């Protein structure tokens, strides 16, 4: 669900299944010896520019360390998840692999598949944004390193806002609803939404929960497995207030995100005034637009508005990113290689390509895109951070949040019913 995770089968062409088998057969070497070491690396950056950037970094590292061989397996997002499940059942996770942190990483930690790298990364962990590292920290121990981080906010079409007479970006939910009414009255679709893929919808409920109940409420809910609280019901009610305005495009329940007629394409073609999306929105909009250029200068960003009387602050960010976890049998040089790819220079390479937003603080100077600069500065100034709910919680709970919010948006279930459904799944875990 990140911009690195966009579906593309092209990258799979180069990555034959045979390579996996060979890799799996050859990985019995002792984990601590200093002899020849092989690092099996699975990532989901299966398209350029990151595909080539990772390959170059691996090549450079191997040239400098003759005893280390790095076997790269680029995988499409869904294929990666399926393949990782199979590999971990055999108790043989790859040495370095894609992780989004949060609930799935915790399950992997609980199953003893991931290495505690706290001590190894201690010398350089302070070079990273603390908010970015948080999803990879479980019970005070670090199990993964983020190389990309971003946040969700409203991306809006300045021209359409102007045409509807909305002059200032709304700062409260009430103002936001007013703006939606104005835009709709002007004959413009206020919001593009990919209802077929439920995760874009869950952003609304999650942000509203943060604004109403604060980050503490979300943490508490995860600890108690209880979402049936007045704060979460209120968040759902606020979302329902929006849904009741019919702000979304025609047929949004069947719309995809990454498609010319989906959420990103509609935004990129100027067919809707705004979307609530992560930092990858401008590039995806451009790619899916008819002109392949997107909105350009007409695109603006504003943070999710505050809710009157809410406990959360507007400076608290909701988002996530991409990182790598280290497998339990990984050779010693894996964390050293991780340190290498997380050097400021290497982070700048990925950043300059426009594919990632750096987690290494000093690499922020390599951000070229003005929109990305806004996201990065909002993130750097954030007073709190919440990982995407469908990644922060155990997968079953996260998916139930997505399903339930989709039902709320479709109008089949009410705010008080969905918190009960989510709680029931959370309790069953």
């Amino acid at each position: 669900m990140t911009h690195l995770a966009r579906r593309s089968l092209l990258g799979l062409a180069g990555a034959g299944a045979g390579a996996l088998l060979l890799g799996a057969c050859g990985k019995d070497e002792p984990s601590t010896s200093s002899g020849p070491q092989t690092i099996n690396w699975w990532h989901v950056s299966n398209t350029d520019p990151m595909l080539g950037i990772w390959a170059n970094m691996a090549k450079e590292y191997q040239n400098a360390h003759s005893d280390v061989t790095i076997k790269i397996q680029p995988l499409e997002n869904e294929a990666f998840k399926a393949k990782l499940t199979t590999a971990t059942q055999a108790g043989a996770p790859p040495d370095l692999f894609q992780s989004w942190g949060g609930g799935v990483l915790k399950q992997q930690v609980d199953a003893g598949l991931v290495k505690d790298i706290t001590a190894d990364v201690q010398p350089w962990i302070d070079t990273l944004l603390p908010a970015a590292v948080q999803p990879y920290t479980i019970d005070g121990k670090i199990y993964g390193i983020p190389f990309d981080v971003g946040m969700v906010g409203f991306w809006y079409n300045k021209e359409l806002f102007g045409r509807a007479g909305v002059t200032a970006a709304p700062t409260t939910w009430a103002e936001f609803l007013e703006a939606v009414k104005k835009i709709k009255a002007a004959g413009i679709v206020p919001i593009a939404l990919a209802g077929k893929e439920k995760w874009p919808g869950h952003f609304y409920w999650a942000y509203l929960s943060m604004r109403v109940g604060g980050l503490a409420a979300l943490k508490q809910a995860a600890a108690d497995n209880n979402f049936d609280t007045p704060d979460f019901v209120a968040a759902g009610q606020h979302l329902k207030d929006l849904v009741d305005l019919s702000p979304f495009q025609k047929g949004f329940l069947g719309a995809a995100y990454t498609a010319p007629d989906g959420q990103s394409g509609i935004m990129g073609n100027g067919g809707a005034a705004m979307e609530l999306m992560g930092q990858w929105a401008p590039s995806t909009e451009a790619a899916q637009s008819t002109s392949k250029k997107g909105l350009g200068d007409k695109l603006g960003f504003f943070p999710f508005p505050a809710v009157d009387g809410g406990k959360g602050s507007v400076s608290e960010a909701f988002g996530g990113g991409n990182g790598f976890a280290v497998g339990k049998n990984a050779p010693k040089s894996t964390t050293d290689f991780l340190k290498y790819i997380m050097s400021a220079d290497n982070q700048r390479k990925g950043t300059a390509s426009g594919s990632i937003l750096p987690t290494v603080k000093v690499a922020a100077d390599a951000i070229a895109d003005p929109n990305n600069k806004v996201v990065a500065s909002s993130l750097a100034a954030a007073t709190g951070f919440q990982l995407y709910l469908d990644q922060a919680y155990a997968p079953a709970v996260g998916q139930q949040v997505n399903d339930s919010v989709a039902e709320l948006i479709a109008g089949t279930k009410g705010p008080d019913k969905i918190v009960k459904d989510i709680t029931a799944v959370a309790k069953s875990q």
Partner: protein
Amino acid sequence: MSTATLTRTPAATQERGRRPRRPGRGVLTIAGFLLPALVLFVLLVIVPIVVAGYTSMFKWNGFGLPQNFVGADNFTRAFGDPIFLGDLRRGGILIVLSLVLQLPASLALAMLLNQNLRGRAVYRLIFFAPYVLSEVTTAVLFMMVFSPGQGLGDTISSILGATGGAAFADPDTVLYALFLVISWKYFGFHMILYLAARQNIPRELTEAASTDGANPWQIFRHVTLPLLGPTIRISIFLSVIGTLQLFDMVWVMTSGGPIHGSETMAVTMFQYGFRRFEVGYASAISIVMFGLSLIFALFYQRLVMRRDVEGALTTRGVQR
């Protein structure tokens, strides 16, 4: 299983050493030819079924080995799960629609294309063409055709006053929209089956009927249709089994949505297995799917297709 066959065979040959060696060698030859297929069958069919049956009794997220044994809990959960029960209901609707609309339409087309029409080879080709496309291709194609506000199909159906592409975004209509796409893809296949069977019916029979004064409907009803029986029965069988296992097309077109409106058993299984990582529960769903298909196949073959399997038609006229 396969090794047992191998080791037993030479012993059997030795026992019967004095006898003519031909039968023994025959067994060995058969075993030799069967072995590769048998190994593949056991590895790719039997073993996964057994493994799925085993994991279906655990509460297991797919990481590490299954340890939390829950017995039949996953199965009782499935039959209390509104989504899964909905899958069964939706599957039932699709099956009924196929039997009532899709197959009769295919049969009618086959009868039509059996006539001496000008350019009937072209029609046959065109009607059969959709079947050649993969389900994924079909799904992508139709999502483009019915893309709201952009697709040709959506525009035309809007002009005609129909809902068009929006039908795929409405939980109440999506299943029927999906059925149309399924029918578009598969009617040609059933049509070709019927057409082939129709052409195997000797002309003398229909001619004799018409000489006896039967009108075209009577000929169809009392001569053609009974003789098409075996083909119709196998076509129903294929249609039902295909519907029970429907996945690719639904996944690409709607992912089972909106609001589970087009979800099938296979989609639910995928959601639980690879989205929610409740692999134990997903295994249980797959076992139920397997069970339903197996029960249907066994009963259908036993009760409906028995005459066909025993070759009733071919032996009836032949002196034994």
